[in-house]
């Protein structure tokens, strides 16, 4: 609850005293009927802007003021106390109910607060308390007519509440100062307004009528001015203008002048107060509605400012498109980059520009159009624009989540990221090459054998042919056979050299359609001699329905080569007949799966993942990079590589690689 220390109990007591004096001075001549009774309204306003735990200080402070005035007027102590109970009851009950129904933080310039003040504080609560007070007076025999007393007390209280409470609580709420600031520069208008209002009020209420009766039409004369005050100066303007009007009306009425000065003072008071209530209440509500609209507008303006500041601070180029692709808004970075201006049709401009530069725009325009049509939330594309070499940009379109549709386009310079990615790829490819060379080094003996076999056959065949040719009648059929064999062996040696060269070269990885089974064959051909000399038997269980892959042949060969060599090394301690590797391939949905199982020593349970970490090795020789490179190669291909231990002996390495979209193994081979 807001606490206003400034509005101390003393100030409240003084205001109460003053209000009582004013109320007493506004009595119809010859009666004790006040047409305007401010003390209750002043106390209510004070309670509304004070924390509940300090209410008692206000109530205690106004008691002496109350008694001072009422006893001074000659009212008996019991009657004065009943009056006090009624006044305090009005204020306490009103403040309690309004406080309960008004959401925090309290804004007294809003429609809800004004309506609560009018209905609860001005009518409902005074109706109840007036009934009780009048009832007590009737019981004490102090008032002849209970209902008349009730009516007058209710009306005079209501008038005080609607004219006094809103301006007082507004004065002690933050918006009061905003109102004063808004008034700056409009002081002249306010002065003119209130001068004219005062003049017209004087004309209506003070100038003696020309005829016997004041034409009631005159009473409507102030209304345009009241509206002016409410529309241009809000709640405070409305309250002040009603107070001004009321002031003249009361001033006239108590002097028995003006339209409300007829024969019966009670009826006069009633109609005067009703007149002021009827003109004041709608005015206050209208002002509150205007205020509310203004604060909504202010909220929207501040959101727009925030939005503009956020857009402007972004370094990416941003444009907002409507559902037809017309640019609605752009940020500073977009403008500086020379992008199309608001109002332009983005896609048309882009097609034109791209057409001039001569590159395809289909995927991009289609993507943006699909976002604009609401077919997807987001579209993103990375482009290497032809007109700015070496610069990578990312263009993304995100649909706007409101009914009118549209999209936000963001253009980001991603050159740095692309370069970093490229560097990482290059480093990894270099590392893969180095480990490949090292692996082949391990195989050099076996590879020498692989070459010496065909060379031996060629040499022996050639020397046999030489001897045959030296004979008188050379066996030409045999020689023809020899030459055929020589050609075949030469080809075989050539293939070995080709494979070696491919693996030793440091080429850029190249994605081509591949059959995983074929890669297995190629690697086994390279490793044949090594497997024989290690006395390892390889069983192949290759699936015929394997999906085709897309990958770099050499890198995948390297992975298999590594896994097979590891399996051989893991089995080195086993007796020769137990050294067996099973290589199996299978189709697993859209993946090709390969497993390599050995009957070796297995892997420690806590090292199943560690073996893929760089520099993890159990061998005396070797860097420990093999499996970590294997995994990164497989992951670069969108696949997975992991290890598990077999139920019996040894370990199994599992490899899955994604299929090349829908192309069958047969097609890849073709």
């Amino acid at each position, binding site marked *: 609850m807001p606490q206003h220390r400034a509005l101390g109990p003393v100030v409240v007591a003084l205001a109460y005293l003053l209000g009582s004096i004013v109320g007493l001075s506004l009595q119809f001549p010859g009666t004790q009927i006040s047409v305007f009774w401010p003390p209750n309204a002043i106390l209510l306003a004070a309670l509304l802007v004070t924390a509940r735990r300090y209410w008692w200080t206000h109530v205690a402070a106004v008691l002496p003021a109350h008694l001072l005035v009422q006893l001074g007027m000659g009212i008996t102590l019991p009657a004065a106390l009943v009056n006090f109970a009624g006044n305090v009851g009005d204020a306490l009950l009103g403040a309690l109910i309004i406080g309960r129904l008004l959401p925090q933080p309290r804004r007294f310039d809003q429609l809800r607060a004004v309506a609560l003040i009018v209905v609860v504080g001005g009518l409902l609560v005074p109706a109840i308390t007036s009934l009780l007070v009048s009832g007590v007076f009737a019981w004490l025999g102090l008032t002849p007519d209970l209902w008349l007393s009730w009516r007058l007390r209710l009306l005079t209280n209501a008038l005080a509440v609607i004219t006094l409470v809103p301006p007082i609580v507004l004065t002690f709420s933050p918006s009061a100062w905003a109102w004063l600031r808004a008034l700056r520069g409009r002081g002249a208008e306010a002065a003119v307004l209130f001068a004219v209002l005062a003049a017209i009020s004087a004309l209506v209420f003070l100038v003696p009528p020309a005829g016997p009766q004041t034409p009631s039409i005159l009473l409507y004369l102030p209304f345009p001015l009241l509206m002016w005050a409410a529309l241009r100066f809000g709640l405070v303007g409305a309250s002040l203008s009603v107070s001004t009007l009321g002031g003249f009306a009361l001033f006239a009425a108590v002097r028995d002048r003006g339209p409300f000065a007829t024969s019966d003072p009670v009826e006069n008071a009633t109609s005067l107060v009703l007149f002021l209530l009827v003109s004041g209440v709608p005015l206050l509500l209208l002002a509150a509605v205007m205020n509310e609209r203004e604060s909504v507008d202010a909220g929207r303006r501040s959101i727009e400012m925030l939005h503009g500041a956020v857009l402007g601070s972004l370094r990416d180029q941003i444009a907002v498109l409507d559902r037809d692709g017309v640019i609605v808004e752009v940020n500073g970075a977009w403008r500086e980059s020379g992008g199309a201006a608001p109002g332009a049709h983005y896609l048309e401009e882009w097609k034109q520009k791209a057409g001039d530069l001569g590159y395809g725009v289909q995927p991009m325009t289609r993507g943006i159009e699909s976002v604009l049509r609401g077919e997807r939330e987001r579209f993103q594309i990375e482009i290497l624009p032809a007109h700015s070499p070496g610069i990578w940009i990312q263009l993304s379109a995100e649909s706007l989540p409101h009914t009118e549709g549209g999209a936000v386009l963001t253009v980001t310079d991603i050159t740095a990221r692309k370069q970093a990615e490229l560097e990482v790829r290059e480093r990894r490819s270099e590392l893969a090459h180095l480990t490949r060379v090292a692996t082949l080094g391990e195989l050099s*003996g*076996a590879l*020498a*054998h*692989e070459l*010496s*076999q*065909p*060379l*031996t*056959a*060629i*040499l*022996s*065949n050639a*020397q*046999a*042919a030489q*001897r*045959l040719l030296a004979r008188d009648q050379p066996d030409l059929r*045999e020689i023809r056979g*020899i030459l055929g*064999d020589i050609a*075949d*062996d030469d080809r*075989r040696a050539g293939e070995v050299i080709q494979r070696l060269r491919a693996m030793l070269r440091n080429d850029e990885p190249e994605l081509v359609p591949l059959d995983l089974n074929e890669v297995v064959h190629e690697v086994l051909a390279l490793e044949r*001699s090594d497997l*024989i*000399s290690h006395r390892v038997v390889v069983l192949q269980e290759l699936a015929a329905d394997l999906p085709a892959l897309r990958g770099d042949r050499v890198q995948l060969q390297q992975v298999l080569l590594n896994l097979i060599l590891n399996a051989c090394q893991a089995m080195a301690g086993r007796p020769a007949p137990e050294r067996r590797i099973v290589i199996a391939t299978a189709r697993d949905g859209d993946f090709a799966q390969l497993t390599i199982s050995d009957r070796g020593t297995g892997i420690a349970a806590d090292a199943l993942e560690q073996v893929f970490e760089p520099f993890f090795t159990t061998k005396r020789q070797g860097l420990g990079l093999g499996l970590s490179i294997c995994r990164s190669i497989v992951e670069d291909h969108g696949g997975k590589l992991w290890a598990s231990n077999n139920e019996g002996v040894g370990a199994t390495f599992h490899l899955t690689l994604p299929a090349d979209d829908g192309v069958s193994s047969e097609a890849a081979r073709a």
Partner: protein
Amino acid sequence: MRHRRLRVAVVDDEETVRRALGRFFAAAGYDVETYASGSEFLDAAGENRPDCAIIDVHLTGLTAMDVLDRMVEAGIDLPTVVVTGRHLPGVTERALAAGASACLRKPLDGETLLHAVTTAVHRAERGGKR
């Protein structure tokens, strides 16, 4: 002796090598028999002993060393020339220790091979019981 045609056995698991060596020895005036594995050769040599055997070190199944050991066990005493495509350290020493007359490296030059065979055979004849 000089006019008798010598009979050699070639043991290599690779068919092209086997065929080429067979042709070479035939062209050089030898009788040749070829075997794809050590056990095949051992079976045949028990009954019909050649004058010399040329055995590849890296055979699938029994290796050349295994074959030499089995020959000693089975009392098959004949000169052998071991050939190897891989130059692993110690192979020559082990082959000679196991009873081979010579250890040659592939690719084989015909003349060297013929020389090794005749040397082995002569040495066996000079020191042998035959």
